[in-house]
């Protein structure tokens, strides 16, 4: 038997792309921002807020990039 990783949405179809807001501690410079080409950045105080339309694979890709680059994830929210 080949074990399968359960789908993150518990077997349902991937939901339609949605707008997500991601808040990261600190200001992201040009280099770090280039890791998130599909998201629009804004500085809110000492934080960077990224917003963009993402489907599930893209969302997990963004989270993986945040992890790989050692960024401090503060908040993740689905908008609307």
């Amino acid at each position: 038997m080949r074990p399968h990783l359960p789908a993150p949405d518990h077997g349902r179809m991937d939901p339609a792309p949605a707008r997500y807001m991601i808040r990261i501690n600190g200001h992201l410079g040009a280099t770090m921002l280039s890791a998130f080409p599909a998201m629009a950045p804004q500085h809110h105080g000492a934080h960077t807020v990224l917003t963009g339309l993402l489907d599930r694979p893209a969302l997990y890709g963004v989270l993986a990039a945040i992890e790989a680059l050692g960024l401090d994830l503060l908040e993740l929210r689905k908008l609307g």
Partner: protein
Amino acid sequence: MLSAVEDEQRRPQPGEGGAGTSRLIDRGDLVAALDRAAAGKVTVISASAGSGKTSLLRAWAGGPGQPGRLAVLRVQRDQQDAQQFWLALLGVVRQATGADSGAEPPAATPDFNAPAMAGRVLAELAEAPGGVTLVIDDLHELTSPDALAQLTGLLTSLPPRVHVILATRHDVRLGLHQLRLAGELAEIRAADLRFSERETRELLDASGITLSAAGVALLYQRTEGWAAGLRLAAMSLAGHPDPERFVAEFSGSDRTVAEYLLAEMLDRQPPEVQDLLLRTCLLDRVNSELADLLTGRPGSERILLSLEDANAFVESLDPERTWFRYHHLFADFLRLELRRTLPGQVPVLHRRAAEWFIRQGQVADAVRHTQAAGDWADAARLLAGQSFSLMLDGQAQTMQALVRAFPPGADHPELAVVRATVDLAQGRLDEAAAHLAVAEAHAGTAPPDRRRRLQVAVASLQLSLARRRGDLAGVIEQARFLDSPVTGPSGEDIALGSDLRAVALMNLGTAEAWTLGLSDAPDAERHLREGAGLARQIGRPYLEVGCLAQLGFASLVLHSFATTRRRCREAIALAERHGWGTEPVIAPALIMLAATLIWTGEFDKGERWLQRTRQALQTDTGPDITLLLHQTAGILHAGRGRHHEALEELSAAEYLGSQLEGSRALASRATRWLIATQARLGLTGEARAALAALDDQRAGSGEIRNARAVICLAEGDPAAALAAVAGVLDGTAPVQGDVTVMEAQLLAGLAHRELGDQRAASQAAERALALAESDRLILPFAMTGSAGLLEALPRHQTAHAALLADILDVLHGASPAARQEFSLPPAEELSPGELRVLRYLPTNLSRPEIAGQLSVSPNTVSAHIRSIYAKLQVGDRSSAVRRARELRLLAAAGRTR
């Protein structure tokens, strides 16, 4: 191909790699925590990038009081290939335990047997005196679900004195809850790894940095004790003219800690160092030759060595310091910087790297970089052209990952042959057939220079598929053209052609061998021999082992048991030299060795080889060899008188035989033993029904005639049994070998004995012994229950006294059946009439003589005996006596008058 530098395989040493690592500070509390954790079975260190997992492991490994043996594996980036992971793991374990001295390292195979591999790792761990600590770093890079599942299995069955430490960026899906419940799982998480202010101070001191207490506090606050941040800061601070100002600017900045410090560190490097880092960061590992190539100038070696010495997130992967890798966090930052500042260079660098990897024969890396350059058509051609070599290198899972990386939609017909190869290697036969159809169509339209090779590849894969399906009819004829060499214009083509040709010969010879036809046997031998020779010539031990294993299997059709056994042992010895002793590739030789041992009555030895065959066949490898496994297990049970177990195994073999189109010979062997076993269990109705279901041709074969005789004997009709075997004994019935005639002689002997003709019985037994003599075949005597027949044979009348003594030893010694059968349900109660007859069964009296003693008709005695056999669930007189003794029925029979 697994290169030793792909995964780090050495024990980290403090102070190793220059001055840099000496800056590791003594994080005593943390090391002590790890020490405590190591008292349990498994420790998981789960914390994000740059939190100091690897540094902690180094500090701990270098600390006092460590267990002597430490095996360290760092998982390769994005490791999707379970086999490469396991081979690397086995490699570090063998290195740590010293098991690798002298032996060749285990090599990859096309049909990887993961459970057997996990078993080997466990065995190596268990055998190490004094215990082993196994460290697996960067476990999050392991993305093969198979490998994770197998790793869970390993972690939950660790031998005593073995401890495993897993380091990972995020929690990995491992089923470790049982270990957690048992208190055997310890965890160290990000918060534990965070530096304290005191440790921050110590780190700076160790790096020779002078900073005010306020500066230290500020730095600590800003980095929040993040290990990578502190290390990066220390690097920028070392030699900084005004450390206080650096810290003030850093903490005044709103940029993220990682970006600020990484950019700062990069900016401080001289231009040629920055250029080297940017141009080589696309590689998972780099050496000076590659770096010179990508930067377009010499001198890279000096830069790489000095970067490592400066502890600048660059480290060497081998003791000779030829290969280096960048810290993942640093490499990811550099890649972003490269794409941002030199976007046009990205495909150029990938192409140059791909060319270098092609020259090194490292196909998977070459394909990866060609894909990354966006040259999809080139990548497809490269991958398709090398698919046989990759498959032989055991990289099916890597190939699968490479195929998946192509963008969906824009398909390349070349990839069909790659997909078919992968599907076949992983047992998806229908998908393989579909992709083969596409590949075949594509081969027809390919330019002439590639057409021939594609056709050979397709035909070779079709043979392999047909064999896996057990459907060889017709395929062999179509594939005979594989016999002729594949030639090409260039030397490289000829080398590739040799891989292809050796595979083709193996597949062809194997297909011919498994049809088991006498007419095909010489062809099979010739093709397999030639394939083995070619494989040795081109340095493909896997193919050589494959051909020799099949040759051992095919041997019995033309050669003696002794020759077959010798060939099997030779093939197994070669397989073991490469660490493939329980891989599917050697299974045909394993099962044949088991079978020959069972035939010569060496039941215990045979059983051990049978067990090893079972291990080798844990991965699905097709119905034909699985059939042989069940059949061999069945005859072993039958030889030991365990008829119920024999029935189970033979029924499984029979079912598989019904699924096989092209291996009728193999199927009918199982059928006759199944029928005979049913009869011996008293299931004469079932046996008769199975007999009736056979067509005339099969029913007329010597093997099935023998089975019919066994039914007749079980039914108490020895005269009919004699009639059944008459055609076998006079040579009119077709037989598959002397064994069938030997069996017929024994059945005739048993029938004569039942009929009271001891002289004829002895003559038949003597003839059976004569046939058994050259190969010393003992199994037929055991299966037919001929102990009584042989014991009645006057010793001075046989020319085979030594063999006879051996056989009787086996028949009496190899009978754990006595204990075994106590677990059977109690026999149905015998009637008083049956008990009276039972009393005479241990004697030498024939049925008519028993009838005379009891003053009843011989028919009545026969009817009683039939009924006794059925109720005691036995098939012959000696088993009935043994069973009756076990059940203490003979004593009861003695009281019944």
